[in-house]
């Protein structure tokens, strides 16, 4: 059988920059369509458990009077918590999605190497994967918002802005973690150290469950560098319609700068590792 049945196509050329990244994202989507059941636990169920435990369960104890009311600005604890949970869940998902799957692309399944043999470039492979992580965070975040609304945790349409902020924060974190993962040669203890010493402390002390002014004064500056704290502040002002323009601009700038730096690092690192 000769290879002539399919009509010839125009002389092939490499896809453009953005198109290449979209094709990479399409690969992840193809994979996800087949394997979504395996990841649904971490991306949807886990945030739901957080919502039930802290928002609904613990929240019932925080009845919106006295010091609690001062902290939440008088709204229900669930309403106050919801946008922060959205950001926290995005950042957690981002960290997870940009560790093991990235190492697998280089080492185990070697899917990145398969892509690198085609016209796609290392930068497109990195940006495509990052974009996919962003799209996935946005989608699972949207489901999360709907569920929170069912429990009465949504006060205004500002929550949509919170969702966008959460996605941006997730992508900022993902770009940096992907860069880190791309420097890792073997699983070893690098990822568990990352989760133990960076991700988990960040989720506990970024103002998600209580304002950071409750923290010891010496610890507070640590929260200021945490992208999750900036995202939480921003997402919360949006959801509660409590904007402070200068602060908001600062938080947004912090997240955008992180994303820019992370993208620069990760694209370079991918290009170098895929073409040694």
């Amino acid at each position, binding site marked *: *059988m000769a290879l002539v*049945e399919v009509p010839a196509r125009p002389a*092939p050329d490499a896809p453009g920059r953005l198109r290449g990244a979209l*094709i990479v994202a399409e690969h992840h989507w193809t994979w996800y369509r087949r*394997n979504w059941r395996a990841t649904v636990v971490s991306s949807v169920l886990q945030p739901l458990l957080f919502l039930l435990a802290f928002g609904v369960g613990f929240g019932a104890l925080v009845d919106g009077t006295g010091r609690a009311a001062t902290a939440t600005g008088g709204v229900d604890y669930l309403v106050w918590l919801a946008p922060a949970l959205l950001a926290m869940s995005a950042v957690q998902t981002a960290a997870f999605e940009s560790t093991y799957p990235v190492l697998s692309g280089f080492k185990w*399944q070697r899917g990145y190497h398969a892509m690198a*043999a085609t*016209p*796609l470039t290392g930068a497109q492979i990195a940006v495509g994967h990052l974009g996919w992580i962003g799209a996935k965070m946005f989608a699972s975040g949207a489901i999360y918002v709907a569920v929170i609304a069912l429990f009465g945790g949504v006060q205004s349409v500002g929550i949509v802005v919170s969702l966008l902020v959460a996605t941006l924060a997730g992508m900022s974190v993902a770009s940096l973690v992907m860069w880190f993962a791309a420097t890792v040669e073997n699983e070893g203890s690098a990822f568990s150290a990352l989760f133990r010493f960076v991700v988990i402390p960040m989720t506990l002390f970024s103002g998600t469950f209580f304002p950071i002014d409750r923290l010891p004064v010496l610890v507070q500056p640590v929260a200021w560098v945490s992208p999750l704290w900036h995202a939480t502040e921003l997402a919360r002002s949006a959801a509660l319609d409590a904007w402070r323009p200068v602060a908001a601009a600062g938080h947004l700038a912090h997240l955008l700068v992180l994303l820019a730096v992370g993208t620069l690092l990760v694209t370079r690192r991918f290009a170098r590792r895929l*073409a040694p």
Partner: protein
Amino acid sequence: MPNVSDALVQARGLRKRFGSFEAVRGIDVDVARGEVFGFLGPNGAGKSSTMRMIACVSPRTEGSLQVLGMDPGSDGPRIRARIGVVPQLDNLDAELSVRENLEIYGRYFGLSRRHVRAKAAELLEFAQLAERAGDPVEPLSGGMKRRLTIARSLVNDPELLLLDEPTTGLDPQARHLLWDRLYRLKRDGVTQIITTHYMDEAEQLCDRLVVMDGGVIVAEGSPTELIERYSTREVLELRFTPEARPEAGVLEPLVDRVEELPDRFLLYTADGERAQAELARAGLTPLSALVRRSSLEDVFLRLTGRTLVD
């Protein structure tokens, strides 16, 4: 500027260094359109490093390299758009189906969904995998995965196909099936570059080859030419019991050349039968004696003093 229609690959003084280790130490290579060209050599000879430079996934350290008339340093994506690559290690998507693997790979080349659907159906036939099209890749046999990897490398109708040790680890039946597919591609005019450490594979498939050792090319020619130039027509292989094993010097007067291996002697001569008769007259009684035609294995042994597959 070389004539693009003649030389698909042209390398001059090509070098690749990794830190202080030099994997490729200045090689010249020309591959013409339509030919099947082989890099033959033991592990660590620099074959794969050379292939990766040609495939535009590893920048060269020194020297010049042209692939399809373009420079891999500046035109990597455009070159990769027109070549097919079968890597040494399979990197299929284990969790996707056989068909999905072909389709998504076609998309990497920017091909339309319609085109890759039709192309995948054609390639499934070619690779004899049509019946497994909907199955996930993971449980497939090694031979099937290899055929799928080759089918995948053809999804963009490449002008040049690079195969890095395509049959390593396959059983003989799977190898022959694969060779047959590669032969069909050659008949369809697809230029192929193959690395292998199997002599029989190189003899079967390659029009022309270079023997590499320690990062340099030690010989170049067609399999027949190389055998004529570096070996004799026949080889007499002798095995002795440890007690009856003679010194190599005793055998040397009988033939053109003697190679001493740990387990046997190789006697190079135009006429193996006659050498065997002389051996008997000299009162030497080997445990076994076998006369065979010279192969590329003998060429390699002559050139490097080592066997290929230890």
